[in-house]
């Protein structure tokens, strides 16, 4: 039976919401194709009742495979076996770092076609067609597959519905891991670096990127957030978090948080797609950047082409004055 297999990422007893969105999308597509959407959970001692919950998002069956968590290659082994044994034609991933690694490796293993950064999937002539924005989102390309297709979605591409409460049958599958799949081992997983800050509940987010030039640039952004007062916070891009300028908990984007504040003020952020996916739903986007070609100006509501070191202190004073009046 042709069908769709969705990878469900889980951590500490909870499923990743992008995986849940992918299962719901796959379930809808499977209905149009006249087939079923199945999910696969790979991990250490995954409880059956946890796996069965995926039925609430549309999985008709859930495969559970016992294998090390947090790395892509054991999952490639598991999905290749399940897809080959059960005749799935498509695999869908909700995005994220592991989704990209697993999807690409799986395409190599199965001789399948793979498309990443997918924002929409449709059915045409009984086959899936994936839409992918390209060239800085200025154009959308459609992917069709000669044989099996692997679809890796952009983060937040699919709506996550509330669970229907349905429970799916669970099938445990024994998979022999490839010798090279066990040559990478997790030493420590999910380490949080830096202070714990809450950016998801903020109405006003002042976000900083590499354009700040140095870690101290964030002091001004904190002052600006303070000037707005109320429910304001400071956020950061992955580049500056990896550089140690700001805590991981404040990171927006692909491997960080997704936010939608009333005001998102981006200072020294170029607006790479990995950042955009985490903040594009913000109600008002203001960008300050000295490079007039920065992609962020293509999706900001107000763009300032100028020097941060001059504009930001002046904005701080102006907002303070306005608040005081």
């Amino acid at each position: 039976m042709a069908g769709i297999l969705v990878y469900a990422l889980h951590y500490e007893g909870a499923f990743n919401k992008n995986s849940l969105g992918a299962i719901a999308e796959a379930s809808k597509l499977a209905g149009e194709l006249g087939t079923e959407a199945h999910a696969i959970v790979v991990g250490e001692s995954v409880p059956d009742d946890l796996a069965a919950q995926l039925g609430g998002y549309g999985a008709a069956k859930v495969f559970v495979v016992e294998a090390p968590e947090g790395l892509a290659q054991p999952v490639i082994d598991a999905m290749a076996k399940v897809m080959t044994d059960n005749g799935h034609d498509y695999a869908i991933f909700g995005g994220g770092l592991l989704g990209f690694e697993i999807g690409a490796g799986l395409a190599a293993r199965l001789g399948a076609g793979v498309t990443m950064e997918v924002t929409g999937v449709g059915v045409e002539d009984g086959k899936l067609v994936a839409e992918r924005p390209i060239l800085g989102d200025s154009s959308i390309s459609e992917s069709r597959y000669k044989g099996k297709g692997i679809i890796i979605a952009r983060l937040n591409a699919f709506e996550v519905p509330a669970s229907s409460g349905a429970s799916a049958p669970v099938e445990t599958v024994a998979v022999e891991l490839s010798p090279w799949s066990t040559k990478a081992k997790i030493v420590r997983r999910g380490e949080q670096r830096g202070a714990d800050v809450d950016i998801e509940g903020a109405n006003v987010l002042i976000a900083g990127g590499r354009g700040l030039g140095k870690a101290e640039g964030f002091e001004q952004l904190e002052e600006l957030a303070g000037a707005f007062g109320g429910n304001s916070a400071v956020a950061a891009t992955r580049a500056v978090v990896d550089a140690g300028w700001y805590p991981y908990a404040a990171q927006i984007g692909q491997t960080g948080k997704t936010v939608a504040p009333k005001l998102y003020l981006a200072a020294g952020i170029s607006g790479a797609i990995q950042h955009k996916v985490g903040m594009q739903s913000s109600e008002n986007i203001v960008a300050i950047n000295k490079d007039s070609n920065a992609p962020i100006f293509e999706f900001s509501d107000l763009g300032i082409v100028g020097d941060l070191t001059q504009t930001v202190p002046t904005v701080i004073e102006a907002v303070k004055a306005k608040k005081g009046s």
Partner: protein
Amino acid sequence: MKICVLVKEVPDAAVTKRIDPSTGRLDRSGEKNLNPYDTHAIEAAMQLKEGGELQIDEIVAVTMGPDSAVRALHKAVSLGADRSVHLSDEALAGSDVAATGYALAQTLKRENPDLVLLGQQSDDGECYTIGAVVADHLQAPSLTQVIKIDVVDGGLRCERQAEYGYDTVQVELPAVISVGDAINEPRYPSLKAIMGAKKKPLDALKTADAEIDVALVGASGSQVQCGSFKAPPAKSAGLIIEDEDTNDTVEKIVAWLDERKLI
């Protein structure tokens, strides 16, 4: 030990990119340069060599691409690679990610490296997936978006940011590792290195030299067919202000925010 660094020639960031409507492929003419992400992979290789904990005898830059890709190899050599390998063949034109990864893996098998390094994504096609494809064909452990590498117990102790925070992973060699741009600050090549780059050995290979099955590459061998390019839903363009007089600019910003009741 031998390290192979996969590099790629990409359009210069300053050049407007477009799709050639007649072929449906990215128009790769215009100014080209070494993919900026790849310079971090070369630097990581240099630091492993200079660190001395592993005996690195040779760093080899490897690319697949048209004749002009030689320039990316010269740049890679000027940054520290000892020699380079250039896979170039008409049969490869139009290869998708999976086909490209297969062709590169076949090329790498000739070199039999202990470590393959690459940049986390290419600047043009955003294919951060090539490392995983190459690794599956080479049957080697693989990790992407690595931001720290230490030599521990004869293998590599790698750190990266994943879905739930920072992960530390111990990887046995041989391995395929793609690095993120936070891993290092690439050095600038010396004038002497730039001048000498063209004199370093360069192997030019055709598909047959790397035992590549041409039925599995190129547009006809690729499993994905891309087409029907269309414009995304239009978003009304925002207001852009060039900051010439900062006081004036900030006045406009505050008025804009105030109008939307954001202050």
